[in-house]
């Protein structure tokens, strides 16, 4: 496997999370994600998958253990010249700013020169197919289009690691499939590392190299699955026997995990 030769992008070293009120959101997690991998964190609500993602992004700090990005803690990430991007569950756009201004936000915040911003924003908008909507306000767009703007904003900084927290969870199935496909082609094109949180088994099988199955109360990793299927994956893959097979084993594991939860 060529993936194993590359550098680890993310190393989670027995990181856990206990909130101030004593609630154990996440048992100690050990997980290594290689550069260029597409990994989904799959599990029911309350399994700590979002917590884990936010810890990787540095939005939450682990109560114990360490998280390294390119072998550096998050606060030294700037030494590696690597960039991370985060796409939230909701589009989190600025309602007062048009599409173009929303996408250029991270570049403006980091003080990127103006002439570079224009080109990069145009490129990102083209990637998500929204070039003709650059002057529209978010409220004029559909939910799916708003999510694309959010993804364009995530890509405009040319990140090495893209963290996505159930980005398509609120969208209808057809739009979601479309965006899943688009995301895969972006991932291949840009050689990104993606960590994708979802509660959909089908979405996780369709997208990822590897599925990390999590369970709740307390949040923990229960099993990992490799989805050794070739890319590019299309809608046809979704109706193949292999797809069903993967989905079934994930389903069984998820069932087992929730049964265990019931006993505990």
């Amino acid at each position, binding site marked *: 496997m060529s993936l194993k030769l590359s550098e680890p992008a993310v190393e989670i070293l027995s990181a856990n999370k206990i909130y101030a009120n004593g609630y154990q959101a996440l048992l100690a997690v050990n997980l290594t994600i290689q550069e260029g991998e597409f990994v989904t964190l799959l599990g029911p609500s309350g399994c700590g998958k979002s917590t884990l993602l936010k810890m990787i992004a540095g939005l939450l700090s682990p109560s114990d253990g360490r998280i390294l990005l390119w072998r550096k803690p998050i606060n030294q990430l700037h030494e590696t010249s690597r960039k991370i991007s*985060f796409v939230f569950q909701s589009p989190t756009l600025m309602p007062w700013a048009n599409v173009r201004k929303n996408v250029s936000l991270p570049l403006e915040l980091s003080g990127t020169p103006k002439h570079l911003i224009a080109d990069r924003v145009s490129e990102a908008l083209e990637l998500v197919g929204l070039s003709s909507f650059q002057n529209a306000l978010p409220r004029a767009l559909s939910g799916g289009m708003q999510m694309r703007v959010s993804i364009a904003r995530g890509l405009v900084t040319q990140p090495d690691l893209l963290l996505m927290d159930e980005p398509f969870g609120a969208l209808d199935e057809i739009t979601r499939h479309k965006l899943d496909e688009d995301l895969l082609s972006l991932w291949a094109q840009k050689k990104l590392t993606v960590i994708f949180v979802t509660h959909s088994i089908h979405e996780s099988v369709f997208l990822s190299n590897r599925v990390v199955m999590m369970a709740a109360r307390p949040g923990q990793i229960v099993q990992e699955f490799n989805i050794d299927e070739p890319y590019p994956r299309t809608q046809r893959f979704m109706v193949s026997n292999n797809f069903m097979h993967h989905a079934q084993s994930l389903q069984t594991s998820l069932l087992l995990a929730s049964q265990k939860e019931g006993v505990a």
Partner: protein
Amino acid sequence: MMSENSSTNWTERMQAVSWRKYFSPLLIGLIILGLWQMMVVIMELPPYLVPSPILMFKTLIKDWLTLALALWTTVKITLLAFGLATLLGTLISFLFVQSPLLEMALFPYAVLLQVTPIVAIAPLIIIWVKDVTFSMVLCASLVALFPMISNTTLGLKSIEPDLMNYFKLNQATRWQILTRLRIPSALPYFFGGLRISSGLALIGAVVAEFVAGTGGTGSGLAYQILQAGFQLNIPRMFAALLLISLTGVALFLSMAWISQKALGGWHSSEIQSE
């Protein structure tokens, strides 16, 4: 049934021209004026008790010079007070948001200021402050200040948590968060504050004029009302009252207009339903 039918048609047509918004309140106003005129005529009410609307408008024209001068004084005080309250209120909110400790320490006093009736403090202010106009401006801005503080502070804090997270992820500075996130998020609340404060500034100005007028100084509309009351010149009292109300309405409408212009594109409170 015939009339109901034709009235539906009529309403539909009005809707098509979208005049309803202006026409319906105007119609109510005219009906009230008509009823009022009728009552005065039928019940033969003397003008020193209830003047008819026609007499009120006649007086308004006859005494226009006096009343216009008074109107100008009141409007001047109101606008100065409103401006001062807006400026101070916004500054204080910015301080509150930058330092929660400051907010904790000072907010109770802002409330104290708000709950103390202005009529009770106005005499003191008018005694302490030499300049009459300034003392009245001060009174009126005290009344108008609190909604500006509370609304703007609330607005500056009302940020979508994940949008805030996004700014933090991108290492945004405090200044960037303030100018690019907090201020735009606060605008709808700020304009809400403006609407309330503009009306309160007028009320504050009128109260201050009353207090000052009782002491024998003043020239605004409230002073005119006071004087007209002493002279039992009730028609002039009504004319002055009308001017005060119209000033309040004008203030409200202009604030609504500004808010619509500023937020029309994006904030749900100002988006016209289609």
